[in-house]
């Protein structure tokens, strides 16, 4: 038996399965799965849909639900942030397809529509399955919301039978195993004296990277009660995820609760389902990762790891203005409190003539608070910040379905109307000039000043209305045709552009159902799919951008009183409309030899037009330098191959190898288009990510760009031909004059496209082996074909910054005295990462008693190691999310750490 977190309905069915069936995940063709609003069988499916049920989920210790499927789904890239918040930095399904607008896939939990933040209110083991809708023919059901793919999560429900209890829990510790190799205190002193540089030598030998660290630990507990009878069932669970990070003061505590009830009424005429989930998360996090790790690496190592006993303050190096004493920085108190509550109800009316009427409504409330205090030891006069936001989301839909089999024909129809309204509001305030650090942010009156721009509040309430019609038809289960027609209207767009129409169509051929296939009994399943569809997108934009509104902009003196004046503050675009993505998808599913070889392949091509984006426009004619408009276009294409092989399958032993590999490519086709009857073009080179820190302000420090004709996020850099002497004993980067006429580092001059930031190939694989009650599972992930800019080494190899800033061990010998950003520090980003190894033991079935129905113990070690040629700490930086850190490793990477986790699951 192989489930780590075994509970609820899945658990029971699994425990009843024969051992040899449990390691691989074959969904039978007649399995019923939820595909968006529709329910259907796998054989009637014509789009690219993947379902991950519990036994395919990752067996490592999971903080965020999506970690359960990391590396398990072709085309899904999940980037975890390292910090204690367990937040996901980004999730991409089939890459980035939009410049601004919501690239995160739509998250739906039991029909409740939400986003990535909603995920953290779900305890991972409460999840029964993930369904991932990838191509437009299926995501079209969600119209605009589903443009970046859909991840549909179904939580566990109760089931008929006596009341059962499941407990699952784990305990683990985290230990840092790799730091940057900086000069230690003695080396620092020696290098300084060798070079005749005067330093502040306080005589210590402190490794500040270690000093700001601590041993991390985590404990997770989840208890679920479930049961039910013929007419009703229920499931209630409570969870706690408690984590202390590997950096001082870093922690997060998450309490979750999930309740599902179902009741049949009026002789089965009505099914009533009620669900509720909620969570409270308290956390303390690092306020600025770059400042933290930059300081820890480069602060003078001869300084002590304690306060100066004479002054009671941290000793500072005032000449190193971009960093601070790393332990002083740890005094910054930055806490967050997030509470989340969602409730939903669903009534299914079983009408005559195979009609079903479904009413669904959900209400979600979340509140988010952030409190921060920067003591006077860090911030000249102390600064406190408090902010809070509240969001409400109300959604209701009404759906009528009809499905019927007439002999060889099967027909499934669905019509839906839906309305949704969100409200987001909040405020923040900043106070400075504290005379004491004692009260922190708890008493804002302890600060003397409230700068005008430090206080603000906001409100918006976007709404959306949608209609959907869907038809699914199959003939003899051989030929399947699905068509969706969805119309969406959003309040965010201009008066005549609110509605968008997003149809899709897909077809499938179940070749195994053909007569001629009967001669090939070893083929269990062979299916060919093709689909095409449109999806709209609007997620990334704010409300009110089409209206000529005036915002409070500044305080100016009017007579002897200050007054606030209002200005437009942005270019207004009344013609804003939907961004539209067209996707073509074709795929093949194959199962051989009693499902011992499974193969699934998909090819997709998508093109996004009318891209919503804040384009850089010229001032004049525009009064402001960015314009939110529908202008450019982008294409994405790729191939996803998933393979599952079971080479050994006996009663006592089973070996499974699953791998998925994704080849993805992206290209920015255009950043220009018509606006108000005139051609508007964004600048040819738009920088996305650059370098920060001492000596990196402005100038030629842009690294990653978006350039038309190139993939989104390319390294556009001067070419370094090597190190040359600076004539004073040091070395500088020699820069090639690529276009003649002398070296000029400006855009369009001596720079070239040196590679892309996003991997071309992504690999996820899992090897699992079972021998009797013992099992072993190894997860390996990898990414290839991209590059990483090692801005950390560019900074830390620069001897010109020594001794104000400490340098790498290797720096004195290389003696580079230059920090010009060239391709010298552009490195290959390929890696293979051994994500985790789990050893588990499951109680044999024959030992089960009426009291103890299941037991499993497991030990997991994660972050086993990484194979890479990349010289920095880790190649697993942000290589997927378009933004200011894309592809650039710049002094902000966490030290690497490993978790050792013991977990236990009991079924009573």
């Amino acid at each position, binding site marked *: 038996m192989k489930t780590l977190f075994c509970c609820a309905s899945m658990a029971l069915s699994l425990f009843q399965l024969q051992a040899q069936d449990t390691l691989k995940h074959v969904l039978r063709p007649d399995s019923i799965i939820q595909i968006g609003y529709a329910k259907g069988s796998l054989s009637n499916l014509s789009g690219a849909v993947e379902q991950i049920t519990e036994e395919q989920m990752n067996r490592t210790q999971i903080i965020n639900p999506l970690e359960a499927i990391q590396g398990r789904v072709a085309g899904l890239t999940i980037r975890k942030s390292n910090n204690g918040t367990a937040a996901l930095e980004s999730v991409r399904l089939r890459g980035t397809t939009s410049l601004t607008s919501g690239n995160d896939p739509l998250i739906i939990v039991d029909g409740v529509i939400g986003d990535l933040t909603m995920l953290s209110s779900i305890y991972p083991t409460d999840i029964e399955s993930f369904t991932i809708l990838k191509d437009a023919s299926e995501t079209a059901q969600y119209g605009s919301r589903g443009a970046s793919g859909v991840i549909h999560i179904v939580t566990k429900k109760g089931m008929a039978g006596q009341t059962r209890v499941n407990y699952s829990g784990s305990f683990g510790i985290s230990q840092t195993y790799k730091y940057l190799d900086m000069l230690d205190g003695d080396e620092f002193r020696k290098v300084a004296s060798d070079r005749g540089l005067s330093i502040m030598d306080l005589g210590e030998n402190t490794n500040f990277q270690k000093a700001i660290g601590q041993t991390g630990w985590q404990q997770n507990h989840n208890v679920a009660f479930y049961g039910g009878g013929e007419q009703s069932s229920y499931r209630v669970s409570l969870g706690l995820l408690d984590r202390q990070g590997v950096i001082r003061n870093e922690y997060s505590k998450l309490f979750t609760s999930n309740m599902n009830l179902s009741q049949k009424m009026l002789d089965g005429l009505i099914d009533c389902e009620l669900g509720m989930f909620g969570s409270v998360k308290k956390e303390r996090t690092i306020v600025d990762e770059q400042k933290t790790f930059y300081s820890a690496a480069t602060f003078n190592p001869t300084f002590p790891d304690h306060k100066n006993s004479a002054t009671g303050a941290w000793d500072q*190096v*005032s000449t190193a203005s971009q960093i601070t004493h790393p332990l002083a920085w740890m005094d910054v108190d930055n806490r967050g409190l997030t509470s989340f509550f969602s409730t939903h109800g669903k009534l299914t009316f079983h*009408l005559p003539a195979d009609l079903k*009427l479904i009413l669904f409504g959900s209400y979600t409330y979340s509140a988010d608070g952030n409190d921060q205090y920067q003591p006077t030891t860090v911030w*000249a*006069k102390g600064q406190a910040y408090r902010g809070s936001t509240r969001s409400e989301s109300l959604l209701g839909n*009404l759906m*009528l379905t009809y499905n019927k089999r007439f002999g060889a024909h099967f027909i499934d129809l669905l019509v839906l*109307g839906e*309305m949704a309204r969100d409200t987001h509001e909040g405020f923040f305030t900043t106070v*400075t000039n504290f005379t004491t650090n004692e009260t922190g942010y708890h008493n804002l009156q302890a600060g003397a*000043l409230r700068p005008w*721009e430090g206080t603000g509040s906001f*409100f918006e309430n976007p*709404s959306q*209305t949608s209609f959907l019609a869907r038809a699914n038809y199959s003939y003899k289960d051989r030929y399947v045709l699905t068509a969706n027609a969805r119309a969406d*209207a959003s*309040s965010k767009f201009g008066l005549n552009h*609110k509605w968008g129409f997003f149809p899709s169509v897909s077809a499938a051929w179940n070749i195994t159902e053909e007569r001629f296939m009967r001669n090939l009994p070893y083929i269990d399943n062979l299916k060919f799919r093709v689909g095409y569809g449109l999806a709209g997108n609007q997620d990334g934009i704010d409300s*009110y951008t089409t209206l000529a509104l*005036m*915002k409070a902009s500044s305080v*100016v*003196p*009017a*007579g*002897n009183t*200050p007054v606030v*004046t*209002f*200005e*437009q503050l942005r270019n207004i675009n009344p013609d804003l409309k939907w961004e539209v993505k067209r996707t073509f998808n074709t795929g093949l599913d194959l199962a051989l030899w009693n499902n011992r070889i499974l193969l699934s392949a998909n090819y997709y091509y998508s093109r996004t037009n009318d891209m919503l984006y804040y384009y850089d426009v*010229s*001032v*004049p*004619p525009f*009064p402001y*330098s960015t314009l939110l408009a529908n202008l450019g276009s982008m294409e994405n294409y790729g191939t996803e191959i998933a393979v599952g092989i079971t080479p050994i399958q006996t009663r006592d032993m089973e070996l499974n190898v699953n791998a998925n590999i994704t080849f993805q490519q992206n290209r920015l086709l255009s950043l220009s288009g018509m606006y108000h009857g*005139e*051609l508007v073009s964004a600048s*040819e080179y738009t920088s996305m990510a650059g370098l920060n820190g*001492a*000596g*990196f*302000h*402005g*100038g*030629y*420090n842009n690294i990653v760009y978006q350039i038309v004709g190139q993939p989104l996020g390319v390294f556009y850099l001067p070419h370094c031909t090597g190190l040359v002497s600076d004539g*004073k004993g040091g070395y500088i980067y020699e820069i090639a004059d690529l276009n003649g006429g002398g070296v000029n*580092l400006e*855009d*369009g001059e001596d720079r070239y496209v040196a590679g892309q930031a996003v991997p071309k190939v992504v690999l996820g694989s899992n090897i699992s082996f079972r021998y009797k009650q013992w099992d072993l599972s190894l997860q390996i992930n990898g990414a290839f074909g991209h590059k990483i800019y090692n801005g950390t080494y560019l900074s830390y190899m620069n001897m*010109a910054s*020594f001794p*104000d800033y400490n340098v790498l061990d290797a720096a004195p010998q290389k003696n580079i*005295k230059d*920090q*010009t*950003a060239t391709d010298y520090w552009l490195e290959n980003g390929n890696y293979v990462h051994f994500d985790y190894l789990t050893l588990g033991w499951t109680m044999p079935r024959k030992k089960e008693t009426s009291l103890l129905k299941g037991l499993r113990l497991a030990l997991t070690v994660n972050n086993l190691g990484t194979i890479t040629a990349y010289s920095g700490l880790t190649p697993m930086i942000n290589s997927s999310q378009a933004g200011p850190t894309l592809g650039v490793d710049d002094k902000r990477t966490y030290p690497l750490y490993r978790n050792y986790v013991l977990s236990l699951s009991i079924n009573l």
Partner: protein
Amino acid sequence: MTTFFKKYGIALVLTTVCCSCGGFLDEDPKGFLKEEQAYATRDALFRNAVLTLYSHIGGYNDSEGLQGTGRGIYDLNTFTTDEAIMPTRGGDWYDGGFWQGLFLHRWGVSNEAIQNTWEYLYGSILLCNKSLEEIRSFQERHPDSDIIAFEAEVRALRALFYYYAMDLFGRIPLLEKSDNKASDMVQAERSELFWFLVRELQQTAPLLSEERSNRPGAYYGRMTRSVAWFVLAKLALNAEVYTDDHWTDGIRPAGKDIKFTIDGAVYNAWEATLHYCNLIRQAGFELEKDYTANFAVFNESSVENIFVIPMDKNLYTNQYIYLFRSRNYSHAAAYGLGGENGSSATIEVLETFGYETDDQDNRFDDCYFAGAVQDLSGNPVYLDDKQTPLVYEAWKVDLDVSGKPYEKTAGARMKKYEVDTQAYKDGKLFDNDIVLFRYADVLLMMSEAKVRNGASGDEELNAVRSRVGESTRTATLTNILAERQLELAWEGWRRQDLIRFGLFTRAYHARPQLPGEASGYTTVFPIPATLVKTYGLKQNWGY
């Protein structure tokens, strides 16, 4: 039962459809003003069409504001000259070669700071245009309203922004509407702009207030008549440069041939300069007895300052980062403030001031920190080790002092403004009003105009000198230029002065002349490359 559900269902569907038609998708913004509300009354119009423009005189972000922030108009006028230098100090101040690029005049056509400065100026100009349209539309709706002064004030402000834009970029589009098409993106010759600005200011000046702009009160920080006159004087003084449409051909119009018509009379450029300076003098401006009073924490009482950026750390967001970025870390810490240890005086400044000579100008200690420095109680300032006193090594200044023993201490630093010990944000938010225009400059302009017109300018020059206890000098052009450096140090005039005197492109310490620079092409900055590419604007010569 069935019919019940059918009816119920249909009713629900209908409700849904109706809701979507009945305003469900309309936006109802809270927290914003609708445009029509913002200009609905005379008071609202005054706030949101006139007063709001003053928030663009000072600045908070880089490249915004006429002075106070970095990488904007002030830096382009200062770090490109022999007045100030931002030495690369090891890991500090290299900044991707930006500062060295400014000093060496190798700034390129896609320079972000230059482009941002352009965008700040044109953004402000278009905002003025928008305000003018709103004011005129209000006037149409309320013909009896007396808002002619609003219009004049906004036009004069627009002229001020255009004056800086023309000075920096030469040949630029002259836009008088807020909504412009690509076809409106036509460059005017520099002389066209020049005469447009002269006309605008001549027409609006009589309608502006006679109040003093540097004094708290109704016109604090605003465009008043004397401010407009000051800009007119600057325009006239630099008329030889501004009416030269082909600045790389080596030929410049002569000031005596440039004719201004003022109140029906015809003046040449120098006479026009004198005319406007005299108007300012007659308005009652005079030299402060104490040079430093103009830059005091409370400098609102100055009788010399003409136009300032009002500063109040509790009320306004305008920053003044120049002291912050100049002072050494330990030096700033001794004041309880922050420092970034950057900007320094050049060798040329030290020479002009006669630093460490018997004739050292009295203003040196008012404008610069050099040698050992003291905290506010007069105690020496020590470095981190609490033993080594901080000593600024003024003569060691260079483009790159990395790795030198004086890496952190080379260069005389900015003083000028009195230390506001209550300042916050590292001293960037202080109460000293930022001085943009002052009367000493008026006197020096008069002296120069007289000399250029063949008369003696001794009286005005020596009025400025004697105020600080300096001996008299003959008003030669050389002495006047030197005096401007002495009197107006750190005030953002050096680039314009050097260009007028034909010395901007010369070589000086640590700055060789660029190939081809003798033509004078670097006397204007390049039109940002994106505008050349997108709208076909003609790039300035030489770039």
